[in-house]
């Protein structure tokens, strides 16, 4: 009886991995790690940041100081431009314009910002200074929608209309009245401007500023209409649901409609595919001569949709304490979702920003928590690509299942020797699988329970004062110490070391071991390996598993 009970317990353990399967780290989180974060303190990030002149430009609002802030790709603050008179959550997407010339004049590289107090600022991206600024009409609020650039002018949706402004000096060329709008972005296609309003009217404006009501729906249009091969796509929000319409762009005639959930997001196109979302689903439409829904997945999103490339989308999950959604799309029928951890769960409407710097790919996340988090693709020089199925791990897990079942059977039948054999192997397999996490958790627990070593890394008076309060990395090469500091936001020894090596121009050779990343050479120096001290204490875990503080000093020494 006892044997059968033990066997039942052992067999029940086989089900545990199934229960915890959804707690495994997502593929995206395996491929990306946090590079740094920037805390704005207060305010919301309601629209996607942009990358201009090697700087990340972020707008924040919903607090006492709506602003646009520029950060270097390593998180260093560059400049900030505020608008204390802006009224509500500023969600009009930032717009970058290259220098040019036209009939109304010439202009340098510009960053265009539309504010909810109706102001349009044209800023120099290099330093945030104002090149020109113009005031548009306000009725409760001003600009909330996406603008569009055409030749030498920019077209901005205002509260009750659409205006065209010269890029050279911001002077208004014309203004066309439409209905009251909110998040009423403009779409510019084949010489025609399209914009919707809160009464469900789709407006068509020609380049001379003459507006026509193209179609009218029961609901609200809160996005820039999108032009597909099948026609103009408009996602109309009703009180408890929404509808996606495909319209003739000339006549406004309805060609198709697709039901959708409440509070729609802003649709985006990628080739012949259109992604639409709402509080219920994310749908993928394929639009040739007609649009068809190829796939849909339950998801709640009401703002921007981030489309990285043909096969990957990341969408903010606009619910409390929720993770972001990473969607993989193979262009056929398969749309898959995995929730990814970004450290800023909860309400959000801003799509991520993707950019590359020094050969590294970054993903930038921001939402209503006023925190900007920047992730980088993991350093994978000597790591086997495990993007899809890791057959090695799968094989080990399968073997573990077999051993577990065998142990139970042998135990029931009283074959102690065979039970010992299978159970001992099972024990070894389990320990091998969990050892990296187990050792990290154990070490963290020990560090918390036991007093820290009294030694500490001494501040070098020769270091610049700007390094105070930042992370510093010291390399000892050929008997000489070289320090690099001023790093902010790095979470572990490996990422800050990598940043320091990049700044120093040192090459890093990294090996992926079963218990973490091991740096085998720095700047071509191998020796018998490299070891690190963190704040004066010898490192006990691998570099990527050792967390650091905002003022930590890491010292690398060849063995």
């Amino acid at each position, binding site marked *: 009886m006892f044997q059968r009970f033990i066997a039942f317990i052992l067999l029940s353990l086989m089900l545990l991995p199934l229960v915890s399967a959804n707690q495994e780290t997502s593929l995206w989180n395996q491929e990306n790690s946090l590079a740094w974060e920037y805390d704005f303190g207060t305010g919301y990030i309601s629209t996607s940041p942009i990358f201009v002149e090697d700087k990340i430009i972020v707008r924040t609002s919903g607090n006492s100081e709506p602003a646009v802030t520029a950060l270097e790709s390593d998180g260093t603050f560059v400049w900030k431009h505020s608008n204390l008179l802006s009224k509500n959550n500023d969600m009009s997407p930032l717009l970058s314009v290259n220098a040019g010339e036209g009939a109304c004049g010439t202009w340098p590289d510009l960053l265009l910002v539309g504010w909810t107090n109706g102001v349009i600022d044209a800023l120099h991206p290099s330093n945030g200074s104002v090149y020109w600024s113009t005031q548009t009409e306000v009725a409760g609020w001003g600009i909330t929608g996406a603008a569009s650039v055409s030749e030498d002018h920019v077209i901005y949706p205002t509260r009750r209309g659409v205006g065209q402004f010269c890029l050279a000096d911001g002077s208004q060329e014309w203004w066309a009245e439409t209905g009251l709008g909110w998040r009423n972005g403009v779409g510019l296609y084949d010489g025609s401007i399209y914009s919707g309003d809160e009464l469900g009217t789709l407006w068509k404006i020609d380049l001379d500023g003459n507006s026509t009501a193209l179609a009218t729906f029961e609901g609200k249009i809160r996005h820039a209409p999108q032009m597909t091969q099948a026609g103009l796509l408009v996602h109309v929000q009703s009180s408890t649901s929404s509808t996606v319409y495909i319209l003739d762009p000339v006549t406004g005639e309805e060609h198709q409609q697709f039901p959708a959930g409440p509070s729609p997001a802003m649709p985006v196109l990628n080739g012949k595919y259109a992604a639409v979302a709402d509080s219920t689903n994310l749908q993928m439409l394929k639009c040739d001569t007609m649009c068809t829904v190829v796939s849909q997945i339950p998801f709640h999103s009401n703002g921007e949709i981030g489309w990285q490339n043909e096969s990957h989308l990341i969408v903010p999950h606009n619910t409390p304490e929720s993770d972001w959604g990473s969607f993989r799309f193979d262009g056929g029928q398969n749309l898959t979702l995995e929730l990814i951890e970004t450290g800023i769960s909860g309400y959000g409407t801003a799509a991520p920003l993707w950019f590359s710097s020094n050969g590294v790919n970054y993903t930038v996340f921001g939402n209503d928590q006023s925190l900007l988090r920047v992730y980088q693709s993991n350093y994978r020089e000597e790591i086997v690509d495990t993007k899809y199925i890791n057959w090695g791990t799968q094989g080990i897990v399968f073997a573990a299942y077999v051993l577990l079942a065998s142990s139970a059977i042998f135990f029931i039948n009283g074959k102690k020797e065979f039970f010992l*054999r299978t159970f001992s192997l099972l024990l070894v397999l389990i320990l091998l699988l969990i050892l990296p996490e187990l050792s990290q958790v154990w070490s963290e627990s020990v560090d918390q329970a036991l007093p820290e070593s009294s030694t500490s890394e001494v501040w070098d008076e020769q270091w610049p004062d700007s390094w105070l309060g930042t992370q510093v990395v010291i390399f000892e090469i050929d008997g000489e110490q070289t320090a690099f500091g001023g790093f902010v936001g790095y979470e572990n020894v490996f990422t800050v070391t990598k940043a320091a090596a990049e700044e120093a121009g040192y090459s890093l050779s990294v090996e992926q071991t*079963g218990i973490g990343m091991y740096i085998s050479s720095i700047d071509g120096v191998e020796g018998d390996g490299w070891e690190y001290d963190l704040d004066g204490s010898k490192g006990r875990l691998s570099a990527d598993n050792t967390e650091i503080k905002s003022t930590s000093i890491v010292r690398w020494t060849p063995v």
Partner: protein
Amino acid sequence: MFEAMGVHGPTLSPFASLVLDVALLASAFWLLAKPTKRPIMDSLFLATLVLSVTLLRVVMQPLPNVQPVTVAALLVGAQLGARRGAAFAVLVAMISNFFMGDGWWTLFQAVGWASVAVAGSQLSLITPSGLNLRKAIFASLAAAVWFDLIVSFSILDGTIGFTDFITYLIHGIPFDLLHMASNLAFVVWLGGWFSGRLEEQPTLEEIEFAVVNGHGIDG
């Protein structure tokens, strides 16, 4: 003598490494320097044993703290006696570290495994009916802890205090658990077979006894 201090203990200069290796080799041959009726066969057998276990250790290097040498030293000591067990342990430590990385820690690994072999010779693990599996299991688990403790002393370089050393030992407990689990697996899977192969070989003590008896008879 020491070039530098590192997390693995003192870093040896080339001369110091040479001295250490010579000392270890000398001790291994001293342990083996006993009269034998079959010197060539015994040497070949021991050499084969050393190389086999060395290869096994090198192959298993990617698995952290999976040390087949511990169980092998235990069983060699149990079956062949303390001297040959200790010699086996020293030679395996030296040769395998030639591939895996030699240093100050080699001394402690050699001492650790040699002491396991000596313990194995004293624990009566071998009975007339073969390996006492129950005893061998407990001995292998204890040997894992003992060996890891001995090797841990290699990090003491004068800069590490007692508290830090205890903290270091506690940090290593997950790896000790893996060492114990792997020892258990080696004993239950290979212990009987391995000790059976060794059973054909007489211990040095048996050889001495036979030689003495032979001379006595001749006398």
